[in-house]
């Protein structure tokens, strides 16, 4: 079953045609990777899907529903969570409270109940905390639970950001370069987690990635993008052997 589909996506920034007529479909339970050289329009594509940018043309279909005009803060409530290329964590808060913000879209008590901290507010806090603890267990973040994010090493922060997206209990997760800035060991851990997310939590993964070994290890299908256009879509091995992809991206 198709979970997400981008139809003829298009976006210009002044004279730059960042995304041109891009169409692709992500199946439920799939790990779908977008590759391409710098400036190919990968991150723009993500920002279009998470509605940070408005579409210039085309439409976004998620779960048989057109979400092309939806407000950006409503995207996560539908079950689409994302991470950012340069880590956008709340640096002055603890890991725990970052993950709890991830629960925001799952609702909470009314403002007056929060102000008085009624028992409903307390119950809600504890319920969210339990879900967050599941994520902490999955990603082995126990020892960093109460640490301030600003003081953590880059590799851990990357995992925290993944956890924060998972805390919202998504059906589709968008990972923007999950391995950037990670050393080989951490990259390997990341590849296990990406597969765990899919197999244990049943979350569909759409990611942008440069590390071809990671791409080859985890992806079911790969989309190669260049100058905002789709070069090819297919199995990882197929794409890596595709002469147009090699010319544009992988180098001869």
């Amino acid at each position, binding site marked *: 079953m198709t979970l997400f589909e981008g139809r003829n996506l298009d976006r210009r920034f002044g004279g730059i045609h960042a995304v041109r007529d891009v169409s692709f479909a992500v199946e439920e339970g799939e790990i779908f990777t977008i590759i391409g050289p710098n400036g190919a329009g990968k991150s723009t594509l993500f920002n279009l899907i998470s509605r940070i940018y408005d579409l210039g043309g085309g439409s976004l279909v998620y779960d048989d529903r057109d979400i092309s005009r939806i*407000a950006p803060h409503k995207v996560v409530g539908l079950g689409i969570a994302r991470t950012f290329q340069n880590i956008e964590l709340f640096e002055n808060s603890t890991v725990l409270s970052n993950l709890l913000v991830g629960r925001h*879209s799952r609702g909470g008590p009314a403002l007056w109940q929060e102000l008085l901290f009624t028992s409903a507010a307390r119950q809600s806090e504890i319920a969210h905390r339990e879900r967050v603890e599941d994520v902490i267990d999955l990603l082995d973040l126990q020892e960093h639970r109460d640490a301030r994010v600003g003081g953590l090493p880059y590799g851990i922060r990357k995992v925290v950001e993944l956890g924060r997206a998972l805390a919202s209990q998504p059906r589709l997760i968008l990972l923007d370069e999950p391995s950037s800035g990670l050393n080989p060991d951490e990259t390997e851990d990341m590849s296990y987690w990406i597969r765990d997310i899919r197999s244990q939590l049943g979350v569909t993964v759409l990611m942008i990635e440069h590390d071809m070994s990671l791409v080859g290890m985890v992806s079911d299908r790969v989309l190669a993008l260049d100058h905002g256009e789709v070069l090819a879509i297919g199995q990882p091995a197929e794409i890596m052997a595709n002469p147009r992809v090699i010319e544009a991206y992988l180098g001869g």
Partner: protein
Amino acid sequence: MHVPMKTSYNEDIRLIRQRGTLVWYALLALALLAAPFYLGEHHLSQLSFVGIYAIAGLGAMLLVGYTGQVSLGQAAFLAIGAYTEAILQKAGVPFAASLVLAGVMAGLTGAILSLSTARLAGIYLAIATLAFAFIVEEVLTRWESLTNGSLGILVKRIQVGGFTFDAEWKFYYLSTGLLVLVLWLMINLLRSRTGRALTAMRDSEISAQSLGIHLARYKAIVLALSGALTGVAGALYAHRIQFITPDQFTIMASVELLVLVVVGGLGSLHGAVFGAVFIVMLPQFIVLLRDAFGISSTYQAGLDAGVYGLLMVLFMLFEPHGIYGRWQKIKLYLDIFPFYRKATFRRQRMFQKSEQLR
């Protein structure tokens, strides 16, 4: 150093997280309760002012310290609260209702203001709120039929039923009691979903939004709450001073509240209270300073502004976490004595900072 062993999720959302500090808060409560027995009129009135400033400071702290929305217009909320209170009291509305209405009025103004400022950030927001404060000040001066213009309004003492707040100690209990209530509400807010949403917006609007936080809505909420708290403080201020004119609510009052949160320590409730104590004591220091240097009192206004500005710059440079930050360092020094090292609190190296989108 004390590392607590936690056995339930409730422990992380308790009002007072560590049992040990409970003793200190109990002692503080006792000292505050008994204050009228060992303090003179003057000191009690200073403490009343601390209460008022701390409530207004908490309003500013919520906005500036927790949500990262710099406001130079807090004086407007203070003025709206004070004038609402004065006018309603003249109309015979009982104090309990007029105090709430003063907060509601200032809060509503804040919410309406946010309609036009929701898309602004940083210096642009500061300028917009500054403009707003000028507008309010001007309206209060010109709308003479309601506000009596620059002649001002006399405000009578607070009366609740047959009880008049006619002695210093009575007002002291009122303002301190209200401060404790406001602190409790603030702690509750900050340990809930809304509080987290606010600090999330401060640190990264883009990821806050992608996690489902409706930025415009939460900016309206925080401006309304901040306005409401400052409005309540304004109402108390009107009663404490007993005479209000528009020129008590100029940009200097806004700057005073900004200095309060910066010097107290951005992003901490302790900071707002420390900052309030500091701001109430400051004029006396300035007078001492003035006399020590033999400066004529005709330069008082310029001297005040100069000292406020200088303090902000010095704190930003040398103690960005304010008095509360310094207090924590002293506490840690004592906790881990003799293992404290110079580098314990050295600031993060720049390469560890990520390149966040702003």
